[in-house]
C-alpha cells in the first residue's frame, strides 16, 4: 500500500472522492425525481374565462318563490323579485366563509344560514360575521328572460 497518502481523516483520497461523487450523483438523481413529483402535485391554475353576463332564469320561475339561486360562471348568484317587474341580483357567495346565501322574505333581507350573517337589499353586510357586502349585479329583463350582468 505504498502509493497512497492517508488524508488527515484517515481515508484514502481516491475513496473519499468516489464516495463524494457517488453521494452527489445519488442526491442529484433523487432531486431529479422529487422535483417533477412536487410540481405535479400542485394543481395548475386553470385559465377561466371570466363570466360577465348570464341568463339567470325566466320571469315565470319567480312567480311563486320570488327568488332563485343561479350559476354565474363557477359561483352562485341570487336574483330576487323586489316588486312587480322589479328585480335585484347579487353574488350569492357569503363573504364570510363562502356558504350560499338565501332570501328571507319576512325580514326582506338576505341571510346566510352557516353563521347567521345578514345582508340588506343593497347587499350591505348589516349583521353577523360577514366582513364585506355582496357584489351587486345589473338586471335586464328582455321579454320573459332575466339577464344578470356584472357591473
Amino acid at each position, binding site marked *: 500500500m505504498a502509493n497512497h497518502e492517508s488524508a488527515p481523516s484517515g481515508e484514502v483520497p481516491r475513496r473519499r472522492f468516489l464516495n463524494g461523487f457517488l453521494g452527489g450523483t445519488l442526491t442529484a438523481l433523487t432531486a431529479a425525481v422529487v422535483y*417533477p*413529483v412536487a410540481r*405535479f*402535485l400542485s394543481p*395548475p391554475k*386553470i385559465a377561466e374565462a371570466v363570466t360577465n353576463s348570464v341568463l339567470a332564469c325566466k320571469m315565470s320561475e319567480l312567480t311563486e318563490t320570488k327568488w332563485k339561486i343561479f350559476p354565474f360562471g363557477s359561483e352562485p348568484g341570487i336574483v330576487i323579485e323586489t316588486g312587480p317587474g322589479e328585480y335585484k341580483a347579487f353574488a350569492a357567495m357569503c363573504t364570510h366563509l363562502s356558504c350560499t346565501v338565501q332570501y328571507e322574505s319576512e325580514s326582506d333581507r338576505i341571510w346566510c344560514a352557516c353563521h347567521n350573517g345578514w345582508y340588506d337589499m343593497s347587499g350591505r353586510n348589516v349583521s353577523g360575521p360577514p366582513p364585506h357586502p355582496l357584489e351587486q349585479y345589473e338586471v335586464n329583463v328582455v321579454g320573459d328572460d332575466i339577464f344578470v350582468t356584472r357591473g
Partner: protein
Amino acid sequence: MARGKGLLSWLDDRIGLQPLQELAAKKTVPEHRHTIWYYFGGMTLFLFLVQVVTGILLMLYYRPSAEGAYESVQFIMTKVPFGWLFRSIHSWSANLMVATAFVHLFSVLFLKAYRAPRELTWMTGFVLFVLAMAFGFSGYLLPWNKLAYFATAVGTDIAGAVPVIGDFTVRFLRGGDHITGGTLSRFYGWHVAILPAVTTVLLGLHLMLVQRHGMSVPPSIERRGKAAPGMPFVPHFVLRDLFGWIVALGVLAALAALFPWELGEKADPFAPAPADIKPEWFFMFMFQTLKYIPGGSALGIENEAVAILAFGAMGLIAFLIPLLDRGIVSKGKSPLFTAAAVVALVFITVMTAIGYHAWWPVFVVLALVGVPWLAGLMMSSGRGG
C-alpha cells in the same frame, strides 16, 4: 456516528434488527455464467413499484367516468406540470414490466429453478404473472379512447365464448351487456383497488419464499460438483440490482420523452372500430391464434371456445409444472420440459410477429435472450464460467 448508533440501537430495542443485520452480513448469491438472470425478478419488482408511484400520482387527476376520463387524461398530458412524463412512464413501464416478467418466467423455466423446494415460489409467481396481465387489460380501458374501447369489447367478447360460464363472465366483466361508463368504473376498481390488494399479498409471499430458499443454482452448474462461489448480497448484489434499476429509470424517462404515449380519440360506441385495432402486444399471440381457428363447432361447443379452453388448460399445466416435472428431481434433467418451453417461446414469438405483420417481435425476443446471455458469459469468464 454516535447519533446513528443511538438511533439503530433505539430501533433494535423496539423492533429487533438482528435478522436484518444477519442477512446483511451472511447472505450470498451464487456466481456463475447464468447469474445475470437473477436480476430479472428484482427488475420486474422495480417496474411494478414505478407503476404504483406513477399510478397514485395519476389518480390525483384522473376522473373514472365516461364523461370525464378522456378529458382528465388530456388535462394530465397537457396542463399538469410533468403530467406528460408520469403518464407516459406509467404506460411504458407497464409494457416493460410485462416484458421483464416474461423474461423472468422463461429464465426460471429454462434454469429449472421451479424444482423442489421452490414449487410454491413458481406458483405464486405464475399467478402474479396473470395478475400483471389483468392489470394491463384493466388499465388499457381507463383513458377511454377508441382503441381501448374496442379492444375491451373484443377481449370481453372472447371471454364470452367459454361454454356454460361465458355469458355470466361477460356481464360480470362489463357490468352489463355492453361497454359503458359502468364498465369503466368496474375496471377502475379492479385496477386501483382489487388487483393491487391481491398482488400485495402474493408478492409478499413470493418475496418471502425467495428470501427463505435463496437463489436456485442451475443443474448444469450443480453437476460440476464444486460449490459455486457466492457474492455478498450486501453490498455487491444489491448495488448491481440498484444499478440496473437506475438504468431502467433512465430508459423509462427517455422513452416517455422520445416516444410519448398517445391520447387517441375519445371513445364513441356509434363510430366504427378503427382500422388499426389490435390488442396489447402480450395478448397478440392468443388473438392471432384464435384468428386461425375455423368457424363451426364440435360436440356442441364452438371451435373458438375449444381454443380458449385449450389456452386455459395450458396455463393450468404451466402453473403445475413443478409438480409435473419428475425428471428434474429424480434424474437431474428434464429434456422434455426444456423442449416444451422452447416450443412455447417460439410459438409466442412467431404468433406475435404474424399478428403485427412484422419482424420486430423476433428481434426483441432474440435481444432479450441473447444480450443477457452474452453479458453473463462475459461477466463470468474471468471466474472460469
